[in-house]
């Protein structure tokens, strides 16, 4: 695997929002490193990939076992036919294509997200949209990751397509590609306040319609509630 040296900065591609707390305690690090090469549910469809992806990480991480820095497995470059064909068309629109612990993911620009999703379904046969969710990184400029977990019955394979958008931006709804996106996108809207353009019924799903705030944002503390809603609708001072 010569690609791994070319990889730009594989350590922490995403969470710059919250800093991991400084290493005060030193947990035994050998356990994660030593067994890095056998993920429980290795995918049968891609026999070579998970093993090859995890192996180079194991010796690298096994050596600094004593120092208090737990180095986990690193994302590996995912370079195969579907990725290169997407790359040749979209160029820098494909920001990253990697595997982590044998799981493939693509990071794409939000402007081409819809096209990529459409091509994933029609050309790569990822016909089943497992899940759509988001992650909030308040300190990043593009605050939200939107994550699409896709599965292909033909290849028995999973891939995650991720994109990053700013607060207030919207992406095109995937309901036309997978009808299952309907409720999943509504939940993302409910919890994060991300609008999906072209969604047939963009409204809250789990919280009541008049609720203010989006609870899974990081600036929404766990005890916070929409007090006004609680007082009007439940007739009590506070739900806490």
């Amino acid at each position, binding site marked *: 695997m010569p690609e791994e040296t070319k990889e730009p900065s594989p350590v922490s591609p995403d969470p710059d929002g919250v800093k991991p707390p400084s290493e005060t305690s030193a947990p035994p690090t050998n*356990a994660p490193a030593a067994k890095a090469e056998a993920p429980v549910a290795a995918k049968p469809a891609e026999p070579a990939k998970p093993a090859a992806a995890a192996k180079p990480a194991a010796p690298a991480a096994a050596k600094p076992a004593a120092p208090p820095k737990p180095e986990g497995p690193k994302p590996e470059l995912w370079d195969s036919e579907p990725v290169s064909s997407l790359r040749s068309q979209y160029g820098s629109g494909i920001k990253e294509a990697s595997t982590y*612990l044998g799981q493939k993911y693509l990071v794409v620009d939000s402007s081409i997200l819809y096209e990529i999703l459409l091509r994933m379904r029609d050309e790569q046969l990822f016909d089943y949209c497992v899940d759509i969710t988001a992650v909030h990184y308040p300190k990043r400029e593009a605050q939200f990751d939107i994550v699409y977990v896709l599965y292909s019955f033909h290849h028995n394979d999973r891939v995650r397509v991720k994109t990053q958008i700013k607060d207030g931006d919207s992406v095109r709804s995937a309901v036309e590609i997978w009808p299952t996106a309907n409720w999943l996108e509504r939940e993302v809207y409910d919890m994060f306040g991300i609008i999906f353009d072209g969604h047939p019924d963009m409204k809250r799903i789990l919280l009541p319609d008049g609720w203010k705030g989006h609870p899974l944002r990081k600036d929404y503390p766990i005890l916070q509630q929409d007090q006004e809603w609680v007082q009007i609708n439940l007739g009590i001072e506070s739900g806490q």
Partner: protein
Amino acid sequence: MNDKTDRTAYLDLDTKDETFLDATELVLNMGPQHPSTHGVLRVILKLDGEKVLGTECVIGYLHRGVEKIGENRTYTMFNPYVDRMDYVAAVSNGLGYCEAVEKLLSVEAPPRAQYIRVILTELCRIASHQVWLGTHALDIGAITPLFYCFRDREEILRIFEKYCGARLTTHAFRIGGCLYETYEGFEEDCKKFCDFFLPKLDEYEELLTTNRIWVKRTKGVGILNPEDCIALGVTGPVLRASGLKWDLRKAQPYESYKNFDFEIPTGLNGDTYDRYLVRIEEMRQAVRIIRQAVDGLPQGPIMAKVPKVIKPPVGEVYHSIEAPKGELGYFIVSDGSTQPYRMRVRPPSFVNLQALDKMVRGLLVADVVAVIGTLDIVLGEVDR
């Protein structure tokens, strides 16, 4: 009730119903306090006479913000919370969660723990299907199966109680394996249950499979073809009843499932009756798996080497298992601290419930009850 030939006529939504001279649409509210909605599901039905023109589900009455709680608890502390989602299959929830964190930690449970996990998870699958069968049959009008199912489910709960002290929200597994070694007589109890349960299963079938009322109420009701299932993301027995042979235990085996010999039952028509047959057969296959696992239960440790303070490396992982209701997935983002940065649960009930509208269009109100039952939803998991 109309028989099947009449029913197909109902599916035609475009031709006007001539029997009512002044037919207007009626909006009917069903739930959230309705016994056949299995909890606090509210369905708004748009009706023409008794024919359903469309539905809208209102959910969230049981929303507790499990994902938010997950972000504010350590990995170990969050473990019991997952039992409260699908509370009739708490063991499966725990299995999925523990495996997802183990994957993030690159740890694998020892073989003995994996076998114990499989035994308990399959017992839990039977218990979950028993709750489904009892309540589903009750909704349609057969009262006896409810008593039979809950009577026999007691035996499973007794095994759970002996194993970990809890009957329903068991918190049976820990990250890295199992906390408890099996109690003395565990194997015998499981074997005894298998011998006891198979004749009981025949009894359920005797009550229902060829029962004319049951067949009339379920055959041809709520049909989903495989294409619709895939498009709507429906998984589990509902998907398999439509004819697609897909089970995560076979497709992407986790734990020790690859060591066991079992079949994936599938249906032909994708109707409520087929879903019933698939789940009944799944219980038989679960017994097969339990027998093999008990016979082959290896010796050895039950806990992998896991640090006391669980701090997975920075990264994210999606892991899913075949829960009794479908694909149960956990998407965990770790920032290297003791608490997950993001804890997403992909609940099978939530996604499956979305298919309700497609399934009941053109049917009668009484069939909506049958279809809600056949989807096997648990509102604790839908709302989380």
